């Protein structure tokens, strides 16, 4: 979504990528400066339209007649690339509007990124753009490149224009773009569109993503982000692109800080740092998050060059035993399976390979293999119905026909619809072969483990395409008004914390399984409540001033009779008065105690970028020490909730590992669904903890043993 609040149309973005006439406004003759190099790049990189330099005092630039003002150009101008200093961009923008320019790229820095003065300038140019209906990329960016021969537009100050390809790259960082272009050039990787979107004052990454969805030149989308400003819109765009087109989105997201989490008051708040939430959201939206540029391009070439594998069954062909084993280990770890060759394939291997060769998977064609053995092994493997992809490994011996083997791999690959990847290990000796592979779009990896990981990533992505989103079905038995009334009442009084006594009422309204309870204001009332509820009970101090009750001795467990209840009442009051003498105490909550069951934690947190997220983990030591928790952005469907549960390492403890009794996982799922609806209905909830939720054996339910809500 653009920063106008509405999404840009396809035509508006098309105008940025496919202009017919371009003015470079603020250009000059000084080589090695941005105003000169932008104009020169458009000119030298064979732009298929017309380009006009606009310069206040130069009569011509690079032999092309220059204009003092954009309004002096007689012909129509589709696009303007603004390279003036930020202080006069408003003047240039105004003239561009008068001229009828509809698309712009503002390269200039000195806007929002430099503080208050820059922010005002940015707002001013945005207002002028809105007045004239101009869509613009930037400011503070490297520019835009479109390699489509129909336009061939390099409006950037990158050192070189990349080759044509099917990978689109969108980046919030301009400097990273030039590094990526250099990296890609060395590996013969081409691009369809290349955009540095800078401060995204107008056109955002969301607008660009929707455009790329329908761009026939783009098969894979790469995204570099430093901050996510509208996480929900990003998730929706990604889901739409993946669902409608099957185009993968690979994202590199920097800025893994957790300042927000440090200030949180709940367990959920402290564990749900921005990076954890981002991870969960990307996964939920189908975005493949990468940790490095290299990893991103490892996956990108796999998606771009080869088909997505039909299954996880692979053949590994190698001339080196050790690397074959390394590849096998990694493949299995990543969820791939070594295919079982048919009798026919085995017969072919026996005929074509020496007796010393290993004809089981991984196929070892032996160190002295020449091209004929690779040819036989790869052809037979790909012909085998149990094989859905081949990974070829080569190490360079004295007799290894490196270039010929690379050519054979390319030729054989063309005859199949199954993916083929290669790993020619080494550097100098294998270089010639690697170039052949790269130019023929066989994904190449220097180490076999990266090859396996990339293959597995494409397989997992392909499998995920088959999973359909389930519709969110709201519960009809909830009392939204009752919950809202409690929350609004608290908010109207400026309160930010709802102690358990009130939080429980909110949960009750959403039919979460709270335990029988009551609030006592005297020893006698505590004993009477204990008698009524039935022992054992737990007693807890209720005070808006005491968030962490255990820390002040505000909780007593295992109270088994009326006398103990009276003692506990007095003891809790004494503890709290000693530790927090100024705390206003509303009473002591007496609650049924559940002794048996597995403790888990459920939580909600409202994330600035993605909205409400739900957290799940095992309680006690698992959450305190191991931080074994998982997250989903809500609302999430039942399949996603099951994922949420399975994502924690400790899930087998609920699932009956080593003879343990299986716990009632279905009841946890129901709680999460109801909690999810609560968050959707009540956006004012900032954080919510249910810690613990005590889960009984299968079909016996679960109970909310403690809860709190932050507004």
């Amino acid at each position, binding site marked *: 979504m653009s920063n106008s609040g509405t999404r840009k149309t396809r035509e508006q973005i098309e105008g940025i990528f496919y202009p017919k006439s371009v003015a470079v406004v603020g250009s*000059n003759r*000084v080589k090695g400066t941005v105003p000169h190099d932008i104009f020169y790049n458009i000119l030298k990189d064979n732009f298929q339209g017309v380009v006009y330099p606009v310069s*206040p*005092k*130069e009569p011509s630039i690079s032999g092309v007649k220059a204009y003092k003002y954009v309004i002096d150009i007689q012909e129509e101008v589709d696009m303007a690339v603004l390279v*003036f*200093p930020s*202080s*006069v961009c408003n*003047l240039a923008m105004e003239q561009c509007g008068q001229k009828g320019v509809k698309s712009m790229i503002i390269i200039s820095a000195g806007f929002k990124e430099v503080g208050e003065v820059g922010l005002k300038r940015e707002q001013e140019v945005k207002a002028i753009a809105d007045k004239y209906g101009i869509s613009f990329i930037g400011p503070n960016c490297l520019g835009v490149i479109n390699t489509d021969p129909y336009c061939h537009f390099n409006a950037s100050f990158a050192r070189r224009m990349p080759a044509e390809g099917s990978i689109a790259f969108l980046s919030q960082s301009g400097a990273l773009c030039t590094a990526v272009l250099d990296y890609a050039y060395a590996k013969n990787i081409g691009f369809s569109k290349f955009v540095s979107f800078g401060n995204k004052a107008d056109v955002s990454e969301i607008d660009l993503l929707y455009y790329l969805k329908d761009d026939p030149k783009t098969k894979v989308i790469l995204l570099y982000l430093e901050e996510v400003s509208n996480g929900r819109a990003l998730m929706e765009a990604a889901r739409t692109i993946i669902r409608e087109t099957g185009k993968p989105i690979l994202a590199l997201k920097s800025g893994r800080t957790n300042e927000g989490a440090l200030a949180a008051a709940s367990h959920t708040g402290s564990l749900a740092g921005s990076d954890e939430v981002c991870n969960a959201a990307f996964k939920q939206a189908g975005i493949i998050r990468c940790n490095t540029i290299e990893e991103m391009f490892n996956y990108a070439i796999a998606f771009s060059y080869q088909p997505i594998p039909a299954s996880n069954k692979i053949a590994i062909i190698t001339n080196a035993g050790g690397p074959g084993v390394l590849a096998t280990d990694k493949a299995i770890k990543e969820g791939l399976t070594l295919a079982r060759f048919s009798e026919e394939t085995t017969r072919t291997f026996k005929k074509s390979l020496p007796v010393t060769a290993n004809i089981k998977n991984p196929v070892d064609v032996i160190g002295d293999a020449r091209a004929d053995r690779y040819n036989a092994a790869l052809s037979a493997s790909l012909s085998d119905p149990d094989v859905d992809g081949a990974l070829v490994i080569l190490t360079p011996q004295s007799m290894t026909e490196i270039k010929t083997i690379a050519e054979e791999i390319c030729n054989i690959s063309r005859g199949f619809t199954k993916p083929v990847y290669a790993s020619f290990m080494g550097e100098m000796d294998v270089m010639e072969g690697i170039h052949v592979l790269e130019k023929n779009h066989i994904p190449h990896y220097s180490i076999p483990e990266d090859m396996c990981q990339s293959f597995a990533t494409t397989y997992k992505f392909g499998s995920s395409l088959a999973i359909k989103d389930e519709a969110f079905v709201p519960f009809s038995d909830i009392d939204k008004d009752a919950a809202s009334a409690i929350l609004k009442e608290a908010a109207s009084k400026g309160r930010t914390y709802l102690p358990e006594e009130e939080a429980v009422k909110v949960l009750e309204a959403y039919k979460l399984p709270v335990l029988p309870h009551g609030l006592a204001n005297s020893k006698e009332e505590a004993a009477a409540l204990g008698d009524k509820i039935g022992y054992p009970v737990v007693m807890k101090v209720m005070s808006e001033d005491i968030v962490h009750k255990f820390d002040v001795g505000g909780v007593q467990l295992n109270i088994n009779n009326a006398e103990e209840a009276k003692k506990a009442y007095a003891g809790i009051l004494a503890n709290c008065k000693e530790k927090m003498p100024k705390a206003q105490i509303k009473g002591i909550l007496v609650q049924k105690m559940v002794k048996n069951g597995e403790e888990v934690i459920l939580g909600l947190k409202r994330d600035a970028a993605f909205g409400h997220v739900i957290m799940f983990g095992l309680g006690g030591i698992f959450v305190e020490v191991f931080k074994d928790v998982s997250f989903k952005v809500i609302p999430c469907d039942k399949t996603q909730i099951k994922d949420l549960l399975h994502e924690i390492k400790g899930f087998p403890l609920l699932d009956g590992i080593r003879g343990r009794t299986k716990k009632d996982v279905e009841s946890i799922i129901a709680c999460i669904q109801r909690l999810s609806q609560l968050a959707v209905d009540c956006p004012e909830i900032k954080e919510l903890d249910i810690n613990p939720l005590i889960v009984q054996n299968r079909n016996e339910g679960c109970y909310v043993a403690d809860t709190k809500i932050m507004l």
Partner: protein
Amino acid sequence: MERSEVETKVKGVIARVLKINEAEISSDANFIFDLGADSMQSMQLVAAFEEEFDVEMEEDKALDVQSVAAAVDFIKSLVDERN
């Protein structure tokens, strides 16, 4: 010094530093957008104005001045202050 006298001198300095015809300099011209001054030339202009009018300019304030008219006002205020 009269404002018109300051303006005439200012335009002369601009023409000399930016190597442009004095007749092409309008009073409301922007140094960058209309006259094509780059950052180095902006610094040179400040130095030339200081010398021409025998005044000292605060660099930040001087570089904030964007148009010929604003420069005339700024310099006249400095000259008046000095006198």
